[in-house]
């Protein structure tokens, strides 16, 4: 192969990188240490359909968007919200329902970076609800004490998980289906995947290389310090013979823990998952502190099962447990955001991708975002090497990108506002999608909205694109009308508020 881009690691990040590079026309070699690509997205070989822990995706997140924009089809299933069982001390679900409702009515505010989630939530929701919300955050942080993490980190994810629950999906057939689709696409685009090919610092190839392993492995390969706080998480997977009227989800939020123990009955979402139509699969996870061993953690999970799932023990057909360390992505302590994590560009044309590096998103979305970004950097590095070095080049700034789209979309309108001194914090962008620095584009209900933030000498410049796609026969006149109308309301704060709200819904 002529000056390929090398990808170390064939997990989600490595496969996304390989596809991105191959589709841009570069030769790609993926080096995967194990005998199968997929990494943590595979559940192990013991039992088909069983993921390593629960795996959901978000329809507004980077992974689903990326799959859609690449026309990679995987079946997605909505959650089963019937039969949610909450285990708490009072025996009442009221605080839970109440705090979700309260949170939903809040203005679309961002939580501060510097405070802990606990301190901020106590201010915003009162101590009782705050304590409950801290524990609930164990669902998506996998952490033993989510309240101690940055308020911004937890609240962004809390909102996406609990207030946007309509966007949660399960991958039909489990994540190995997703992995298979990625592998198939990578191979179809000409990428080479070398299995059983574990690289060491000595065998790290020359040329642009994307290291898409866990952070600890990347640190060893690149022989430098790369670390960031992660989690310790106990997992218990149980397959049982058919039982009674079992809950689909158990949320154990009892106050003896600073986090929650979550149990999902995967077969409630997908009855045929195990290939045996009536067997049930439960998957539980619990964030545990550094001092706690595996056995007491599993005992705590079993206790929750005992309370919520009658007669599960007698019906166990198969079970397995894991204690995973730093395997569920990065967590940001107070005072830090994803931007402070180990950077993607490590110099010398080495780039790191994965779920614990400097990229936005939730869990595997970080892996996808960083992989896309790392690949663009690697492609650029390859071009620099392949072509005569030193040639000038320019980037497409977020603002110009919107200008191009606005010019190409009939009837689109474009509006720029100067913000002085960064006073308007509500408009700061936390992209869920790696579409470029400070840049976000989304379509909802036929309305396309793009926002770009460009730093300017004393503040920043926010450019907003709005476009409505009407059905064909009426498109032309309506577009004209709409853009005239909008031009008159665009500058008003009402419109801006509407934009702000939508972004956070």
């Amino acid at each position, binding site marked *: 192969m002529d000056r390929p881009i090398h990808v170390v690691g064939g997990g989600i990040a490595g496969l996304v990188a390989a596809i991105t590079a191959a589709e841009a026309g570069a030769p790609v070699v993926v080096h995967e240490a194990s005998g199968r690509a997929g990494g943590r997205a595979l559940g192990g070989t013991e039992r088909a359909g069983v993921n390593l822990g629960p795996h959901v995706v978000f329809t507004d997140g980077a992974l689903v968007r990326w799959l859609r924009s690449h026309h990679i089809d995987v079946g997605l299933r909505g959650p089963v919200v019937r039969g949610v069982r909450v285990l708490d001390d009072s025996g009442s679900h009221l605080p839970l329902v109440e705090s979700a409702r309260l949170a939903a009515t809040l203005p679309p505010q961002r939580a501060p970076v510097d405070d802990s989630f606990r301190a901020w939530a106590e201010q915003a929701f009162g101590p009782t609800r705050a304590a409950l919300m801290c524990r609930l955050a164990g669902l998506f942080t996998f952490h033993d004490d989510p309240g101690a993490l940055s308020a911004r980190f937890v609240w962004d994810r809390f909102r996406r998980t609990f207030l946007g629950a309509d966007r949660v999906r399960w991958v039909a057939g489990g994540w190995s289906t997703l992995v298979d689709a990625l592998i198939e696409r990578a191979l179809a685009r000409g990428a080479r995947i070398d299995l059983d090919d574990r690289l060491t610092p000595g065998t790290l190839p020359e040329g642009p290389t994307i290291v898409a392993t866990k952070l600890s492995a990347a640190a060893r390969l690149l022989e430098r310090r790369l670390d960031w706080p992660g989690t310790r998480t106990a997992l218990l997977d149980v397959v049982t013979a058919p039982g009674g009227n079992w809950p689909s989800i158990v949320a154990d939020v009892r106050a003896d823990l600073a986090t929650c123990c979550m149990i999902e009955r995967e077969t409630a979402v997908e009855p045929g998952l195990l290939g045996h139509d009536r067997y049930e699969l439960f998957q539980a996870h619990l964030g545990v502190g550094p001092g706690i061993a595996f056995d007491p953690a599993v005992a705590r999970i079993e206790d929750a099962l005992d309370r919520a799932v009658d007669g599960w023990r007698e019906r166990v057909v198969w079970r397995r447990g894991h204690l995973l360390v730093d395997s569920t992505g990065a967590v940001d302590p107070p005072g830090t955001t994803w931007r402070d994590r180990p950077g993607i560009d490590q110099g010398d044309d080495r780039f790191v991708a994965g779920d614990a590096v400097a990229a936005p998103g939730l869990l595997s979305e970080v892996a996808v975002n960083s992989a896309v970004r790392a690949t663009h950097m690697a492609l650029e590095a390859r*071009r620099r090497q392949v072509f005569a*070095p030193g*040639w*000038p*080049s*320019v980037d*497409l700034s977020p603002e110009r990108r919107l200008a191009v789209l606005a010019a190409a*979309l009939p009837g689109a309108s474009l509006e720029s506002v100067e913000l002085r001194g960064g006073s308007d914090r509500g408009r700061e962008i936390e992209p869920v999608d790696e579409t470029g620095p400070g840049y976000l584009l989304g379509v909802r209900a036929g309305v396309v909205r793009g926002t770009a933030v460009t730093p300017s000498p004393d503040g920043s410049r926010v450019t907003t694109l709005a476009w409505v796609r009407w059905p064909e026969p009426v498109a032309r006149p309506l577009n004209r009308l709409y853009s005239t109308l909008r031009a008159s309301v665009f500058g008003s704060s009402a419109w801006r508020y509407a934009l702000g709200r939508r972004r956070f819904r």
Partner: protein
Amino acid sequence: MEDQVTAAQRGDPLAMDALLTELAPWVGRLCSAIALSRGEDAMQETLILVLRNLPTLREPAALRAWVRRIAVRQSLRMTGDARVVSVPDPPEVPVLQDLDTVMDVRETLMRLSPSQRAVLVLRDLEDLSEQEAAEVMDLPEGTVKSGLHRARKSFRQRWEEG
């Protein structure tokens, strides 16, 4: 990539956006090497034309060649130069790929006319043949040849001086 092009042709804004991501670094290099300080404007004009006229592109596979043509022309238009300055035929052609990184490519590019830069870009960055380069620029092959010679000579002089 081709699925993406087809989706963008149908007017799918996310696909159009993805296409921009895909094309921008490359178009940016073409435009800035030819239009220099007006490179950003040339890139913007190019990308607008590309997205607007995308539905007219019959073969998604021909995208790159088509975009290249637009980029070169927009860059030349931006610099107000549409013709190659003709110079005598080249006796020998040095290999450009070995240029030292230290050399200030930009400064040398500035000494050339925009069309000479365009020819150089097409031959040495884009690896086109003289005939293909002539086609992109809508010029006779001989003119391209001589323009290229001038460009390369200029590069070599800088190289040997510095």
